């Protein structure tokens, strides 16, 4: 009750984040901005739906995703018993999309999370220590950066062989250098600010400075950047599966589904479009969410 009253008062005060009278912590301000951004809210809702449906696939899926039927192949959406139709082997599309979402999200999110952790650590170390450490880390990253991301992912996956674990490894390698670059430049920028010098003058050691002054100001921008990479990671993961370098059949995965349904497009054009639509909706939702996050986290003043 008290919180809803507080929010009401804030809305009455106008659209700008409340400043006068009620001091607000940074994260509360960010939360307040996010709550008042309809596009971001909608994208977040869509994403929540997708994630929940993927998580709950074992309970939601009406059929076994790998049980086929020769009799009922490439049924159009709306077929009784198969709301979204069946694929080229007569497997239920809804079940496969729900189960495939698990794989696609796993393969899309994990590399970004890994890259966020490893890339932040490397980038912050490079930026904060500087000199030789910086040169060593950044020039190594440049080597990876020299290849287009798709090519690099294919090359590493091709060398390692197909499979989910190898997909995760190759995509992590693709995203780490990107995060390192952003982390390094953010760190260098913050490191030069006077409040870091002020912390040194107060006698603080490196650990305390990094923990209390650097991380809080650097992790935000890195997080925002990482969130923009999720949609690309999902597309790359699906792409690897499409090429037969990712998840192996009969496992359901959106990219793999696109690949196997590809030849059926002249028989039934609607069914092959479904996994593509799922990929599109998910990556779009991630993009819109990260845009909203970036806007909300922008410090003003």
């Amino acid at each position, binding site marked *: 009750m008290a919180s809803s009253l507080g929010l009401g008062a804030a809305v009455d005060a106008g659209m700008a984040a409340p400043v006068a009278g009620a001091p607000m912590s940074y994260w509360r301000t960010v939360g307040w901005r996010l709550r008042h951004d309809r596009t971001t809210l909608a994208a977040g809702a869509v994403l929540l739906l997708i994630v929940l449906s993927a998580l709950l696939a074992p309970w939601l899926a009406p059929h076994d995703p790998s049980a086929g039927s020769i009799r009922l192949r490439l049924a159009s959406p709306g077929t009784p018993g198969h709301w979204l139709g069946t694929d080229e082997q007569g497997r239920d599309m809804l079940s496969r999309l729900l189960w495939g979402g698990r794989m696609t999200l796993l393969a899309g999110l994990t590399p970004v999370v890994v890259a966020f952790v490893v890339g932040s650590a490397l980038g912050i170390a490079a930026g904060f220590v500087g000199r030789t450490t910086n040169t060593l880390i950044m020039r190594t990253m440049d080597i990876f950066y020299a290849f287009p991301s798709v090519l690099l992912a294919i090359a590493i996956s091709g060398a390692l062989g197909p499979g989910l674990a190898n997909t995760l490894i190759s995509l992590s390698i693709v995203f780490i250098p990107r995060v390192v670059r952003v982390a390094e430049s953010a760190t260098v920028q913050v490191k030069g600010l006077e*409040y870091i010098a002020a912390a040194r*003058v*107060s006698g603080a050691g490196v650990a305390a400075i990094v923990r209390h002054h650097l991380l809080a100001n650097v992790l935000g921008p890195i997080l925002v950047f990482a969130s923009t990479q999720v949609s690309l990671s999902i597309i790359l993961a699906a792409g690897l599966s499409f090429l037969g370098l990712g998840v192996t059949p009969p496992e359901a995965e959106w990219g793999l589904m696109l690949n196997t349904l590809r030849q059926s497009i002249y028989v039934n054009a609607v069914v092959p479009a479904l996994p593509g639509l799922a990929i599109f909706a998910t990556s779009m939702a991630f993009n819109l969410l990260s845009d909203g996050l970036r806007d909300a986290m922008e410090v003003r003043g």
Partner: protein
Amino acid sequence: MTAPLLRARDLTKRFPLRGGLLGRPRAWVHAVDGVSFDVNPGETLGIVGESGCGKSTLARLLLRLIEPDTGSVAFAGEDVLRASRSRMKRLRRDLQLVFQDPYASLNPRLTIEDAVAFSLLVHGTPRGEARDRARALLDRVGLDPRLHGRRYAHELSGGQRQRVNIARALVLDPRLLLLDEPVSALDKSVQAQVLNLLQDLKAERALTYVLISHDLNVIEYVSDRVLVMYLGEIVETGSAEALARSPRHPYTQALFASAPSMDPDRRMDQPPIAGDPPNPIDPPSGCRFRTRCPFAMPRCAEVPPPFVPVEAGHEVACHLYELEPAGRR
């Protein structure tokens, strides 16, 4: 005659300009060159000079934020540059700095209360006590801790932020406070308030100040003694009163002549010195001011001028004041 609180001898810092594939230094920027001075306990030493003359670098050298190439700094008799890590941490409590930019010098993610308390936590003060002391000090510098304590820097005005900076510098009970252009980013009216606050705090806490500024009015207002810097070197030192009354170095004269004055009789018709300071990458030989000096002589290009006393406690590095130019070598 008491021992100086801070003693700087022959401080020199050159910054490399790197270039090429291997990043070898191509040239050196002479930021601070052979600067020596003492700061006596209880005084306010003003350091004045144009922007880019090395004032801020000097402040950072004194605090060991940058390591000097040569020279020494002693605080209360202790060698700052050779202090061990733990000794340095102890020394930092006595030697604090108020930064120039009230915007960049406060962490946007900390409340101002936490920003002030941070220094105490670093030195092992319990959290509750640190917060109480931070609040008390915020109150002293004119910020209501109940109203402002939980706020973030971006919610405060420039003057308020500079008060937070002062509180942060004072929370460790330092003996010497370096003020690097403490008011240059503030409005004139706020400048006076902050300067008066600094004066009051100095009297209350028996502080010693080193005030760095490009603004002669500010320097004259608060300083007991003044160093005039030009291109990384000290060109004249003396009491604030003596410098204002009879500036000797042509550069000091030009500085005083160009300071905006409220007195209509002191208004000038033409600028006393023209042009920009020479490039510190390749400073002029001999006297560094000779390229802009109206009295330059051939000797000025050959020999760097030594310090010459012109009256008690007033020295100038200029060949015009040498008593026996030929006799000295």
